[in-house]
């Protein structure tokens, strides 16, 4: 009885007792969720257009952030370093398409998946070789991101919102909006979606596979840079950032591998729920640090009821 009480009733009593703390937790979860959604979006774009499960998205985040900081350390002004980093990400996209993807066209999914793990290892070694393995500080102020914090006092309590988190959320929303317009309205965006629907049909009407792949990997690179700046501002830039890529995987499962909307909603849901679970159930009852697995187990349970994720395309099987 005591046990049931501590699982089923006590956490909710805690939530009601300190609504300001609850709000703070929700906000933290929302910010984390926005970042998960951003990474998941990079995954979804590449999966949609090429059926490649791109494991390298996480390391691309690290690589982009390291390039940005590394360029700034070499004396490049911050606002010039951003476009330069984008150039680097573009070259990376071209290189990946030429060297890795083109020879592997038409291979089974698992081979392409392994190839992206190979890319991950290569970039880890390459990045450490060039930039060193130590933790770096993101050039938040130089990029003009405000660093103060706003405080509110709802319910007679106290909630503090860091301005850089707020900037991150706004930036992510703008980025996603631009991306959605690009995908749905522009000619290139239509070509990407056409490739996602049917490779051969798209090729037969004259859509260039290699151009679109480079484009998609470049967009994934832009998203990686945005994620890298935002997450780096919160936690510093190091190879530990790579682990957040794993967090994007349950988001993908939850939202469905093909769905942009699913990535966003899944990201927000997982960000908020894992924070709530950690604070109200994980820390008091299970010794904490439940964030490493909660998202996976949650997505697993959802998947048992909807095997293609919440917004994924229904899998139609034929013999």
């Amino acid at each position, binding site marked *: 009885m005591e046990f049931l009480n501590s699982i089923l009733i006590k956490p909710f009593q805690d939530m009601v007792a300190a609504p300001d703390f609850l709000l703070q937790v929700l906000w933290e979860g929302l910010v984390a969720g926005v970042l998960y959604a951003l990474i998941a979006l990079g995954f979804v774009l590449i999966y949609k257009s090429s059926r490649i499960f791109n494991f390298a998205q996480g390391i691309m985040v690290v690589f982009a952030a390291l390039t940005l900081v590394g360029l700034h350390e070499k004396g490049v002004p911050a606002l010039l370093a951003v476009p330069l980093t984008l150039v680097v990400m573009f070259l990376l996209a071209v290189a990946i398409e030429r060297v890795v993807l083109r020879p592997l066209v038409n291979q089974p999914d698992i081979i392409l998946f392994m190839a992206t793990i190979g890319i991950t290892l290569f970039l880890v070694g390459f990045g450490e070789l060039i930039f060193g393995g130590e933790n770096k500080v993101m050039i938040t102020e130089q990029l003009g991101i405000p660093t103060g914090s706003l405080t509110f006092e709802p319910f007679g309590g106290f909630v503090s919102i860091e301005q850089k988190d707020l900037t991150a959320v706004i930036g992510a929303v703008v980025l996603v909006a631009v991306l959605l317009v690009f995908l749905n309205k522009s000619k290139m965006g239509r070509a990407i979606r056409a490739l996602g629907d049917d490779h051969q049909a798209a090729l037969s009407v004259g859509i260039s596979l290699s151009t679109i792949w480079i484009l998609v990997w470049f967009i994934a690179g832009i998203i990686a840079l945005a994620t890298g700046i935002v997450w780096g501002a919160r936690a510093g830039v190091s190879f530990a950032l790579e682990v957040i890529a794993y967090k994007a995987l*349950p988001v993908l499962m939850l939202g469905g591998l093909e769905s942009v909307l699913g990535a966003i909603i899944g990201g927000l849901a997982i960000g908020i729920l894992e924070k709530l679970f950690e604070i109200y159930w994980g820390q008091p009852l299970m010794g904490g640090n439940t964030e490493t697995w909660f998202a996976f187990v949650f997505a697993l349970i959802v998947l048992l009821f909807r095997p293609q994720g919440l917004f994924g395309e229904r899998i139609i099987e034929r013999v």
Partner: protein
Amino acid sequence: MLYRTASQFKTSYHADHALFPVRQDAWLLGIILIFAYAIIPMTASEFTFNALLIPVLIYALAALGLNILTGYAGQLSLGTGAFMGVGAYACFKIITAFPDLNIVVAIALSGFFSAAVGVAFGLPSLRIKGFYLAITTLAAQFFLVWLFEKWGWLYNYSSSGAIQVPNIEMFGIIVAGPNASSVTQYYFVLAVVTAVTWLAINITRGRIGRIWKSVRDMDIAAELVGINLMKAKLSAFAISSYIVGVAGALFVFLWRGAAEPNLFDIPLSFRVLFIAIIGGLGSILGNYLGAILIVALPVVLGTLPGMLGIPIQSATVEHLNVMIVGATIILFLIVEPHGLARFWQIIREKLIMWPFPH
């Protein structure tokens, strides 16, 4: 000329489906076994045992377990590292609870624990497929490693949170622990690996193996011809996890000597997956070839600059190492997506023809 199959007639289906339809294959295996059991132990140094031979065998065993699940039954798993952990922790609990128990029995029993955990995490495979399933196995990976860290009972509440292998005797010889000699450990691992490989070969070419392959190739079609998918998938998870668990127990007890939870983290899973894929999915031989490549490559790369007299800092070597391993993986996938085992098949076919091309 050495590999001539002429004059080796088969007069019955039974003979045609024998383990070695070609006599030379049996000889070749015999030579390899003589090397493994007699010649290598006599010539190898302590370093070779610890850095190459024992890890190659253990990794090959783990990859064999994964290969049964992924290569034969077609269920992609990314949680191998955690299942190895289950085997290792189970073996540790058994050994510390019953110190008089024979270590072979302890290792064999510990496999059952990882098989049970494997079946539990394999249950979703009945509904979830493809990459979605791969990510659900990551749930096992992260949850189990977290459990190893937080559940004190598993490591007997030791203050370091790590498990430490005591000295374990078998028939008066110390086989595991800090005082065990490398040669003994090598023979122990080799014997276990040989036995499990023999079992695996015979399982995969028998009835169960054929059922798994049909599930891998198209599970709905398999279901329509009367195969019980649940039994097929769960048995693959069980047998695969059993072998992986045994490999995990060997990994800690006969090689590492101690283990922390993060040893079983995701890089270990990926390394085993690399071995299985570079070696060749759906092949037993491939696991050994892949393990030799993946284990030996970093060792060779690590000693190469020193031998050539190139002054490079060890950190740089480490980074170059990671880069080269990544590039090698991509290269192998491009050159031969069916793995090293396929290379051997091609060579073998050429040898049978040689020196006449037709």
